[in-house]
Each structure stands twice: as C-alpha cells, then as structure tokens.
C-alpha cells in the first residue's frame, strides 16, 4: 500500500510541477491573450485552407494489428519470466514455440507489406 502511495505522490507532484510551469509564465512579461492573426497555424507564410483535424490516413494501420498480437503476448511473458527457472527447459521450449509462431506472423506481414507506408 505504501508503494502505491509513493508512486501516487510522485506522480501527482510531477503533474503539479508540469501544470505550474505552464501557468508560471502568464504572470511574467507577456501573459497577453493571443490575437486572431497570431493563432493561425504555422505553414511558413501560407494560409491554411481547412482545420488540421481530419479523418487522418494513418499509413501504418495494418502494422498496429500485428502489434496487438505481440502486446497480448507480453501478458503471458511477465509471469513466465518469474517461473522460468523453476520450470526449466519446458518453459524455454514453450515460449520458443510461441515466439516462433508469432515470428511467422512478422514474416507474413512483411510479405504483405504492412511495414511499408500503405
């Protein structure tokens, strides 16, 4: 419990510092409000046509599916790492098989071009 409290205190203190740092300057020099021409997004002199927020075409979306497979695998690896020595060779072979299957996924994805910017 004390551990959780320690992390919470560290986190909250850091959050407060981060927010205070941003509020800090407003008392200094130019805390002035931003005027409309100042607000225009920076394009090196060009004027923006539309809002920047959009249905963004994330070019790497097939890669994220592959990522989920590996991220799920992490859940099994944490407990596996703790009991690895007790279980010995069995644990080694099991995880080897698991990783080998997932690696086939990487090869398949590579062939399908998921690491290219689609």
């Amino acid at each position, binding site marked *: 419990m004390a551990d959780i409290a320690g992390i919470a205190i560290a986190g909250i203190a850091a959050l407060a510092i981060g927010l205070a740092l941003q509020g800090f300057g407003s008392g200094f020099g130019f805390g002035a409000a931003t005027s*409309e021409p100042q607000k*225009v997004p*920076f394009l*090196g*002199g*060009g004027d923006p*046509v539309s809002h920047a927020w959009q249905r963004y075409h994330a070019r790497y979306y097939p890669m994220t599916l592959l990522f989920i497979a590996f991220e799920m695998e992490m859940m099994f690896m944490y407990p596996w790492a703790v009991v690895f020595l007790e279980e010995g060779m069995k644990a080694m072979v099991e995880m080897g098989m698991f990783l080998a299957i997932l690696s086939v996924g990487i090869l398949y994805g590579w062939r399908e071009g998921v690491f290219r910017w689609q």
Partner: protein
Amino acid sequence: MAVTGASWLAASAPAPVYPAVGADGLAAVEALSLHPAVSLQASPRHASLLLVCGRIREADRPALRRLHDQLPHPRATLWWRTEPVPGFPAASCVGDDRADAVRAVWRRLATGALGSEADLLPDEPPAPWRGKGDHGQGGEGMTGGKPYGRPMAMTDEDCRDGLALDAYTARLGPFLPILPPGLRLELTIQGDAIQSARVPSPPYPQAGSDDPLRCIARLLPLLGLAGLAERFRRAAQGRAPDLGAPDLGALGRALRRSGALYAIPPGLGGFAGEDLRARLRRWWAQAEGADLRAPPGEGCLADLLPGLEWSEAMLVANSFEPEILMRLCRAGPGDGDGS
C-alpha cells in the same frame, strides 16, 4: 525582481531568430547560423526576431505579414539587404550584415528597452461562425459548413491504397525553413503521403549558393544531423577565401559514420538518371575536387513529389542545387499564379 533576473538571463542567451530568406539572402543567413550569438529557429513560435534577408517578391508580402504576426511577444523585425516592406512598423532595426547587430537588438528586446511590435493584420477571426446546423457547425450534416470559421477537410481517393479518407491541402511556404527559401508548395496530403503537388511560385535565385558542401549541409538537418550540417557549412565557409584544399577526410568519415547514405531510401527522388543517394555521392565527389556536373534533364518538382511520404518529400525538395531547382519549378503544370 525575478523578472529582472530572468530577462538578464534571457538577454545573455543567443538571439532566437526566425529567418525569412529572400533573393540572394541564403548565403548571409547560412553564415549567420555559424555565429554563437545567434540561434536560428525552425518555427516562429520559438523565435523573437524575424530576420528578413534579401529582396522579397511583392506576391510574398502578405505571407511575410502573416509570419510576423505568428511570432510571440516580445518580437522585433530586422531587415538585411533589403528595404523594409511597407506596412511594417517603422524600421527601427535595419541592421548591417553583422551578428553583433542582431545581438544588440535582442538584448534591448529581452531587457524591455525595445518595445514589442504590434500585429500587422486585423484582429478578427478568419470567417464568421454562424452556428447553424445539427451540431452548430454552420452547415449541413456532420462535416459540412465552417465549424469555428474554417471548413473541414473532405474525403478523396488515395493514390497508395485507395481508401477514401480526408485529403488535407497545405499551402506551404514561401518562408518555411524546411523548404528552399521562396518556394511555395501546395500539397494535398492524406495522412502524411503526398497525393498531389503544385508549385505556385519558384524559389528565390541564390547566386553562388551551389557549393556542393553547402548543398549537403542543407540536406543533413532533415536527417536529424544538425551538428554535422554545421560542420559542412563551416568547411564551405572556410575554403572560400584561401582556396586551399580543406581537410575533408574527417568530414567524410563523419558523414559515412552517421549512416546518412543508408538512411536515404534507394531510388528516392530520381531525376535525370540520378537518385538522391547518387546526388549526395556526386556532391561529395565534387567537394573532393572531382570535375562532375549535374546531369542535364528537364522535369518538374510537382511531378516528383506525389506518392511520397512527408519526410521523403522534404528530402527530395531539398536535394537540388538552387539553380537546378529553379529550373524544376519553372516548367510544367506546377507553374501557376504567384510571382
């Protein structure tokens, strides 16, 4: 008290300058970048001084005004090798080409001796927001109208995978530091892949800026090698007066060690039978004294960019000698309005 201390600290820092480079101004800005009293910034949000260096086309004046207003307060404008553009505040700081002058202006600005310049453009929103429609956006349906004064990007076909997501049109330049000065690009992008490109106006002429070492130095920052780029600029600077062969050995080793050649995808930016890697190699060979010339070829920058990802496109746009880039921007369908 604390403010005084902070402004004293700030005044002793290198002057944060955003350069807006005009005709024949590039060499002066590149020389300025080597001076320890000045730090050039890539975004006006990080700068306090707007340095206009070289003559500015009349068509680019509105862009310069927009840029001026994007600097946060306190801010000031400096003019090098050009008269102040009408409409700007009384030219308090027409400097000569010396970093000391920039530094002096910065000191006065940081300590409050020089007042911050006011906006040039009227303080009004880009378009009135009418607040009609299902979601108050001022139009029909979910994405119609002009929410908060600006339209939203609308869907279009994609040239890579055919998904019809939003196509965003960005009018970049003429003073975007990641593009050659003066070059305006109108890019339509989906995500970060370029769908189509137009060149509304070509870059400014830069006499005597075709030194291969300088060309390499303009490419390297895009690869995250700002330090190495500085070394190349200094080497180029150093060999002009004495004309002796500079020690390029260490420079070449650093370039190879950095992996810059490997980082550039093979086949990228092919023009006149020479891709970007080959151009970089040729520049290096030229710097070492080989008698090589850029291969002759006709083309159009607007045709080289579509289909590329953003960082690749920026590499390609920066991979030509200024003179060749002028040619690439003059011909072809990209030559529209502008200057």
